[in-house]
């Protein structure tokens, strides 16, 4: 590219201005990266939701339990191929700030239900053989520097007392967006320490169906089965269930979009102004280029090229910084377990930066292209 020194030389003409504009792009795209991470964290449940899985919760509220006796009844409904259940434990490890989700799971079916979580066979076998055993996600292991064989005390909040667990295995996610901050232990262990009136209850059921097209029919059949019972159910697809959770936190999508739009609009004004000044200062030079034979299209491309170059370098820098930031892990102490800047978000960010560069550069580039050589040379 024999013209590249023209672009570089022009950008280095006012180093402070170029640095500040690059900085504007970098800060904006860093923020974009973080917003994308937060959005991803909130929508993670939607992304990982299995199309052939339903979630059955108490119709009154998710914090109300359901009887364990529903298990067999649900399993008999046509279209249901597997049923498992789990309870939210809500315990505290050492300090309340050390939040991570703990689930009391049904150990015979849970692994089958969620094949995206990978546990080595020998570790799963060790878990099954230990009533106080636990399987933990690899991110959780890294966070607390645990290892297989460690004994971990967790103080119950919903279920009183201090509960001791033996780490028997570590699970990994098969996809980057899989949550590997969970802590699983035996439902039987929870059950044996329950007082009488809390025995035989589960938090929710997860149901696998034979065909995602049957989801509506099977969900209706489950809810109909328990209509007018003391424990009515609400069944929905795993995706709808996850979406409901996101909605509880408010319209996150709108909030993030609003912040992002304001940031990019401001960036557009800053860059547009910079490019306009840069072109105005160089009218004579651009006129000379035209006089010696450079075409209008070349002058247009030169100015646009500078704007796009600024956008690509500044934007790339900002995205790289946000990626680096996410590599340090969730800074919220477990509230955003899926703290990950995905490649599509990086590509979207770069495209957004280039779009801003293009829009910001187009007016100055257009005026440079339309510049009359005679008029520009006459200016002193």
């Amino acid at each position, binding site marked *: 590219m*024999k013209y590249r020194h*023209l672009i570089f030389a*022009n950008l280095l003409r006012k180093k402070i201005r170029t640095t500040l504009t690059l900085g504007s792009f970098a800060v904006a795209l860093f923020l974009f990266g973080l917003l994308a991470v937060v959005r991803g964290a909130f929508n993670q449940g939607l992304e990982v939701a299995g199309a052939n899985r339903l979630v059955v919760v108490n119709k009154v509220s998710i914090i109300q339990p359901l009887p364990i006796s529903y298990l067999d009844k649900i399993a008999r409904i046509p279209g249901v191929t597997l049923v498992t259940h789990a309870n939210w434990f809500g315990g505290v490890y050492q300090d309340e700030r050390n939040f991570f989700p703990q689930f009391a799971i049904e150990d015979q079916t849970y692994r089958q239900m969620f094949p995206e979580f990978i546990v080595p066979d020998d570790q799963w076998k060790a878990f099954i053989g230990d009533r106080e055993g636990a399987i933990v996600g690899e991110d959780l292991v890294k966070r607390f520097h645990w290892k297989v064989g460690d004994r971990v005390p967790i103080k119950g909040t919903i279920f009183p007392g201090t509960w001791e667990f033996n780490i028997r295995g570590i699970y990994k996610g098969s996809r980057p967006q899989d949550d590997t901050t969970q802590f699983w232990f035996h439902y039987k262990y929870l059950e044996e320490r329950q007082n009488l009136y809390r025995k035989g209850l589960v938090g929710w059921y997860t149901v696998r169906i034979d065909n995602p097209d049957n989801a509506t029919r099977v969900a209706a059949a489950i809810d109909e089965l328990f209509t007018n019972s003391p424990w009515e159910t609400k069944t929905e697809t795993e995706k709808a269930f996850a979406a409901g959770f996101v909605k509880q936190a408010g319209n996150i999508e709108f909030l993030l979009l609003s912040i992002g739009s304001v940031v990019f609009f401001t960036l557009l004004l800053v860059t547009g102004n910079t490019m306009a000044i840069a072109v105005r200062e160089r009218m*004579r*030079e651009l006129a000379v*280029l*035209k006089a*010696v*034979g450079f*075409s209008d299209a070349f002058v247009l491309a030169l100015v646009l090229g500078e704007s796009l170059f600024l956008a690509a370098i500044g934007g790339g820098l900002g995205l790289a910084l946000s990626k680096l930031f996410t590599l340090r892990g969730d800074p919220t102490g477990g509230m955003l377990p899926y703290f990950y800047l995905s490649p599509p978000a990086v590509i979207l960010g770069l495209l957004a930066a280039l779009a801003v560069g293009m829009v910001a550069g187009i007016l100055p580039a257009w005026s440079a292209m339309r510049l009359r050589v005679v008029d520009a040379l006459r200016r002193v």
Partner: protein
Amino acid sequence: MVRVDGRGDGNSLVRVRGLDKKYQRGSEEIHVLQGLNLDVDAGDFVAFMGPSGSGKTTLLNLLGGIDLPSAGSITVAGDEITHMSAAKLTQWRARHVGFIFQMYNLIPVLTAFQNVELPLLLTKLSTAERRQHVETALGIVGLMDRMHYYPRQLSGGQEQRVGIARAIVADPTFLLCDEPTGDLDRKSADEVMDLLARLVREHHKTVLLVTHDPVAAQRAQTVLHLEKGVLVEGQAAEVR
């Protein structure tokens, strides 16, 4: 041979016929050039003189294809440029015209070498060929040792010599010089005029020069005066 009576033999390098240029300033119409004729042969060195506002620079701009006439025709090396599209005219300028400006108009963020190389970027020459051409041009103007200097590191005379190197590097049909010594001291101005004269004498370039400076004008073979929108012949001299 330079003629201003419109009776050139048709073999002229530059042939101008009935050239008109009008400007609109508010409600007033200013007639700068009125039916101007000119014939310039290859290898001529012509100086245009005249009072400020007489239309010297306008004539130069029209000859260089960076302005359009109100009427009349300009033919350079057989190409009628007055009816060319803007895109064609741009290509034509790259091939035929070398501009030398009063304010040098070098790009301050490029070195002397890179400034001189600019017109060659429009050609298909390789990097090595471009380098060779640039070094030749800088050698002619005596600035080989300053090729990596930026304009701010050069004197006014040196900047103008870089401007001349840029104008000749692509070997154009003719050079159009708009007050090339207007911003220089006498010594530097003489050096620049020596250089232009040498380009005509040794390299057979055709030079059309606009100047206020009678000393500079005396270096041309022909001096033409612009009066009331037409050219009249002045004194002639040997190329010195």
